[in-house]
């Protein structure tokens, strides 16, 4: 059994043996890619002189090899096949055209979208890109080239590009905010969202519409309608960023009629809970931390904090800080009332 470093070297030295003749002079390059929350993946690129090349990640390929699911030779062959099918896909062919003008802001203005990540866990990545800080979160900006339910291909606006564009951070943010049209935002009850996702799985499992509906109904029967909501985008990929938009925050408060808590369930979506007496912020925060620890991939985690939106003040805040602020205000009010001279004789 090869060690991980030996495996990487083996793939680097042998992958071209499984590629067509025209790749014989290509260069294979190993690199490390910094993903969300400081997660680092080992990547492999085959540089053949074309403007767009897919990136293969070796971490997962090694896991498959180590588990004994596939032999070393078959693994390298599979990586070579994966590379070729990605390279020949329509998406990659069309990026080459779309990429030619990406250094001109007017050419990509309509493709800018915002994403949200944890500020503290992404300090290294954020050092090289323009970003806005909101509470303990950071908003970054991305040029989207292709987007559908299967995946989104994009490029982050880094400092180099940002300076080329010659715009301010506020202008970049405003562009992203304006690009987020209301039809791009998905806001629905949790039960409806789950019904949609569970039905696909249930139908694949049993192959019968009626039976699939019954399975879903049974799974969701204990859930109360309209007590929890989800906000995301239409693809459900990196959709938690919708809550960074002022117009989305206001739209939610209009729809549910007031203040609400925001549970950052992942970088892909947020759970929205209308404020009610039965919900205690400290309990919700403990739940967020448990789910992050047990159900969320490290690169998909958004935050361990609970947030809330004050619809009167139009303010988005970490709940703990909002509570401290309210207590401070109450104490000040009490102090003022104590200092007032007594009116009784």
């Amino acid at each position, binding site marked *: 059994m090869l060690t991980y470093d030996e495996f990487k070297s083996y793939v680097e030295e042998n992958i071209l043996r499984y590629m067509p003749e025209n790749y014989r002079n290509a260069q294979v390059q190993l690199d490390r890619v910094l993903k969300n929350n400081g997660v680092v993946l080992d990547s492999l690129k085959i540089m053949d002189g074309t403007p767009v090349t897919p990136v293969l990640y070796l971490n997962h390929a090694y896991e498959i090899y180590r588990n004994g699911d596939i032999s070393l030779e078959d693994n390298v062959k599979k990586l070579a096949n994966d590379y070729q099918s990605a390279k020949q896909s329509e998406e990659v062919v069309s990026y080459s055209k779309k990429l030619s003008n*990406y250094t001109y802001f007017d050419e990509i203005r309509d493709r800018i979208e915002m994403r949200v990540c944890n500020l503290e866990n992404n300090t290294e990545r954020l050092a090289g890109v323009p970003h806005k800080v909101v509470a303990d979160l950071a908003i970054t900006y991305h040029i989207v080239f292709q987007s559908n339910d299967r995946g*989104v291909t994009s*490029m982050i606006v880094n400092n*180099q590009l940002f300076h080329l564009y010659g715009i301010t951070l506020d202008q970049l943010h405003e562009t992203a905010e304006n690009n987020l049209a209301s039809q791009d935002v998905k806001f629905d009850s949790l039960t409806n969202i789950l019904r949609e996702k569970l039905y696909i799985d249930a139908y694949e499992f049993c192959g019968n519409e009626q039976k699939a509906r019954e399975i879903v109904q049974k799974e969701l029967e204990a859930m109360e309608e309209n007590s929890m909501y989800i906000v995301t985008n239409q693809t459900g990929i990196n959709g938690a960023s919708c809550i960074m938009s002022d117009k989305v925050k206001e739209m939610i408060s209009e729809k549910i009629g007031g203040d609400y808590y925001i549970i950052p369930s*992942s970088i892909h979506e947020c759970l929205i809970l209308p404020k009610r007496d*039965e919900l205690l912020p400290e309990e919700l925060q403990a*739940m967020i931390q448990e789910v992050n620890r047990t159900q969320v991939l490290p690169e998909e985690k958004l935050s361990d904090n609970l947030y809330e939106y004050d619809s009167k003040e139009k303010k988005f805040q970490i709940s703990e800080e909002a509570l401290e602020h309210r207590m401070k205000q109450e104490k000040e009010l009490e102090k003022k009332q104590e200092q007032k001279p007594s009116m009784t004789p």
Partner: protein
Amino acid sequence: MQKNLEYSTNDPSRMVSRLIKLEKMIAKKEQERKERRKNVDL
């Protein structure tokens, strides 16, 4: 300039499992609090 294209995905089954887990935890706490209120006259 180096073009660093990123490909992002979201596995629907992972999304469902984290949301169901959160829903169950929240619903349980809410129910407990409602029951307690029924039994205590404040």
